[in-house]
């Protein structure tokens, strides 16, 4: 873009148009007393620093290690998630879906980008893309293969479509040879993508 400002007195870098529109909304609503700017900073800080897939990984590692906890999570996860402090915005109604040797689960939101924020944080760009949102329903095996997950033909694939009310967390299969590992060590094997279903736990082959 041509830009003819004086290099000795350059003005502040102009943010892109949508950034200015967001600022405009914030200013208008703040002036009307309808929002609290400090609350916005707090929300950003929470999702940038405090909440993320490490929460989901704790849940998975505990389900792998503790059969009673696992059974309870599959039955009614909300009280336990509440106990663990993983309850809140966009995680009010979680359903836990477990991968098995027979079934692989994968999660999408075809409407927009519903996602279990308290357990996984903010969704990655690809989760919000049209390519993923439309294709994973139509051709899940092909999409999974593009993520590097080549499933055997006899394994079923279940695609779960999230809604504003119900969010899903995939529990990947526990890799073999991990019997002696502590929960903390197990957590390190559980990636964000493995809890969406577009990856396996580390050390596991399809």
């Amino acid at each position, binding site marked *: 873009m041509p830009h003819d400002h004086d290099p000795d007195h350059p003005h502040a870098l102009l943010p892109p148009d949508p950034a200015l529109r967001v600022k405009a*909304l914030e200013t208008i*609503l703040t002036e009307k007393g309808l929002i609290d700017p400090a609350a916005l900073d707090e929300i950003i800080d929470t*999702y940038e620093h405090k909440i993320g897939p490490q929460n989901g990984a704790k849940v998975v590692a505990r389900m792998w290690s503790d059969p009673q906890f696992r059974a309870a999570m599959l039955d009614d996860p909300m009280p336990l998630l509440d106990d663990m402090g993983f309850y809140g915005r966009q995680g009010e109604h979680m359903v836990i879906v477990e991968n098995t040797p027979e079934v692989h689960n994968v999660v999408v939101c075809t409407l927009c980008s519903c996602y279990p924020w308290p357990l996984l944080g903010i969704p990655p760009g690809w989760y919000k893309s049209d390519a993923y949102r439309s294709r994973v329903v139509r051709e899940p095996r092909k999409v999974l293969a593009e993520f590097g997950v080549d499933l055997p033909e006899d394994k079923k694939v279940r695609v779960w479509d999230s809604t504003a009310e119900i969010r899903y967390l995939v529990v990947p299969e526990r890799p073999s040879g991990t019997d002696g590992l502590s929960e903390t060590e197990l957590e390190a094997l559980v990636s964000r993508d493995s809890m969406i279903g577009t990856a396996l736990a580390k050390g596991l082959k399809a």
Partner: protein
Amino acid sequence: MSKPTPIFEAPWHAQLFALTVHLHEKGVFTWPDWTVDFGVTLADHRLSGDLNGGDDYFNAWLATLERVLQDNKMASGAAVEDMRSAWEQAYLSTPHGHPVKLPA
């Protein structure tokens, strides 16, 4: 864990996200209503080509929020445009390195 990537690709994505969550918590709209409105915008925007999930996704988000706030009479289109251009002027008239403020 997967390699660290920025949670929000651009600061305005984060601001817009936080503003929307805050307005929801203030009771301006329910989250199910929001997702329906947002889904409609995403479907509209998709007609002009596949969305990549980055800027274009948040552009659709912003268009949705602007419409909701207009419908709720919280921020009219004209007010948003005036304020946007006031901010633009403020950036263009503030020397580099100085905090950008609206004229009092």
